């Protein structure tokens, strides 16, 4: 059978394969979720939560995005993408049916089948930082028996900037064993939920630093800094906290040098790091 996806025998890791954007969901004023399927209707490749993929628009460029969908959603890959640069601007103008290039998966995933197993999980995200955690959360929901209690603390600038709001409200919040804490930065008409920054809400909630708990963070650097500080104050150990780093990436295979930090390459050795591992890296992320 001849191959239609351009996966040639000698295909290099740098060469993307064809894929098609089948569905585009507007999440917030500057975030859209793109559903991507291989050109032959396949799922392009298998991945694990936390891993990333390179999306290509020929002539515009290529960039690394975390895969938002869970590996348990086997028909497609979702990418929640915030408009913030040349390529993402272009992606936001696309219509369903548009073909793009994709390559991956890249990086090390969250240790969902090892370290996380049997643990109570706290997910803490800010803004578009929910994208990589979305994949882990849905993976855990699909394998619910493998995990203990799940707490999700998610905040954004405003109610309009909360990504995946419908799914959170209609699915996550309604499931047993899942507690969802939502917050927005400033008061807003029609919002009767919590108001305040994520780190301060974290203190109000006050999670117990049980050894059986794992915290997973993702968000803007300033949020990560204060949330981590908060968790440490509560008594959590850095070995219980996982996060993802984001640096400029190009090749995805630890060779082009761009995401090198200390002896690590974020594209290959990350993007998922345990917080005590980050402490060993030079302070330039």
């Amino acid at each position, binding site marked *: 059978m001849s191959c239609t996806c*351009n996966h*040639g025998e*000698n*295909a*290099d*890791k*740098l*060469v*993307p*394969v*064809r894929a098609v954007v089948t569905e585009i969901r507007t999440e917030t004023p500057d975030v859209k979720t793109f559903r991507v399927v291989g050109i032959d209707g396949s799922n392009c490749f298998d991945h694990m939560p936390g891993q990333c993929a390179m999306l*290509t628009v*020929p*002539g*515009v*460029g*290529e960039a690394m995005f975390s895969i938002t969908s869970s590996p348990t959603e086997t028909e497609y890959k979702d990418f929640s993408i915030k408009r*913030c*640069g040349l390529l*993402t601007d272009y992606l936001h103008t696309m*219509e369903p*049916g*548009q*073909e*793009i*290039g994709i390559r991956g998966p890249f990086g090390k995933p969250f240790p969902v089948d090892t370290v996380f197993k049997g643990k109570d999980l706290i997910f803490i995200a800010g803004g578009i930082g929910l994208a990589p955690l979305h994949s882990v959360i849905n993976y855990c929901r699909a394998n619910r028996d493998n995990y203990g209690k799940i707490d999700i603390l998610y905040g954004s600038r405003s109610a309009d900037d909360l990504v995946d709001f419908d799914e959170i409200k209609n699915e996550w919040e309604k499931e047993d064993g899942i507690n969802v804490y939502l917050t927005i930065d400033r008061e807003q008409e029609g919002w009767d939920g919590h108001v305040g920054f994520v780190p301060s809400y974290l203190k109000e909630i006050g999670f117990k630093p049980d050894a059986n708990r794992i915290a997973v963070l993702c968000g803007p650097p300033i949020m990560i800094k204060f949330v981590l500080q908060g968790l440490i104050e509560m008594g959590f150990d850095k070995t219980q906290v996982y996060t993802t780093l984001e*640096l*400029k990436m*190009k*090749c995805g*295979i630890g*060779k*082009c*040098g*761009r*995401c*090198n*930090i*200390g*002896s690590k390459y974020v594209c290959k050795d990350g993007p998922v790091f345990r917080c005590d591992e980050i402490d*060993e890296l*030079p*302070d*330039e*992320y």
Partner: protein
Amino acid sequence: MKKIEKAKLNDLLARLAEASTLYLPVRKGGKVNFAKWTKDEEYCADELKTVKSAKDVFFPQSENIVSFKRESSKITILPKELPTDRTVIFGVRACDAKSFDILDSVFMSEPADSFYTARRNSAVIITTACSTPEETCFCGVFGIDPANPGADIQTWFVGEELFWEALSEKGKALTEELSDMLSDADEKEVEDEKSRISEITKQLPLNGLSLENFGGDKTNELFDAAQWEKLSQSCIGCGTCTFVCPTCQCYDIRDYDTGNDIRRYRCWDSCMYSDFTMCAHGTNRPTQLQRFRQRFMHKLVYFPANNNGEFSCVGCGRCVSSCPISMNIAKVIKSFGGDNK
């Protein structure tokens, strides 16, 4: 050990060029670089160091890796054929030969870079001993011996003859192909040359640099060191050191719209450039100090951490002679107490 008269060297090169693509140091516009050899080119055997190293035979400064066509919402992806023609690189110095091992450990480690690997696998490297090492040379610091340059075949110019020793299977096979042009020689005939070279290398002013303060476990000691400020203060942020360096291998990937198709090419990049780590939300190395530090920390600390203590420098001294402000890795090593003399 084999040999050939220097007067017949051109015939040998012509033979090599028949069955392979032959690269060697040739002079163009007054400067010597590795380039494809044709009968009209003169092999610059006396040039110790080409401006650029020979790395771009395997890792070209710019190469297309894939092409695209776009038609309304459809795209076509046209992967590039991998190069398979046999390549011979002649006249490689010991430092550059060693640099290929370092590049191999980057590009050929899993997942391997298929473009580099294809070129590397189809190449035979013929080295030449350094008859006149220069003051900028410090390959000895990295355990490299310019009298025994290694690779597939190593050669020495002695008097009116070129001595030839095949080392690897590839080298032996190529030597066999050329057997009618090479005559038998005695290893003793190159011994004087080897010891002459060894005597010179002992006098090289930078060959006594010590690397004891560097290595994979030195991140914490070196990263915040006060020295970086003075070392980097005059750096103009160009890419000269990076591009003439035989071991620097960072690259960028870009698209180029020819009007007919879109070519995705990769090209050399430099961590010294202000936009190297720039992305939509800014850069994590906004100062030249940080960028300068990254280059040397990578060569002397991060790379050894990932490669069993091997440094990503071969002491070729190209940065010593070509930096616009005369700042270089030797001065960096010295400022951290590496001046052993």
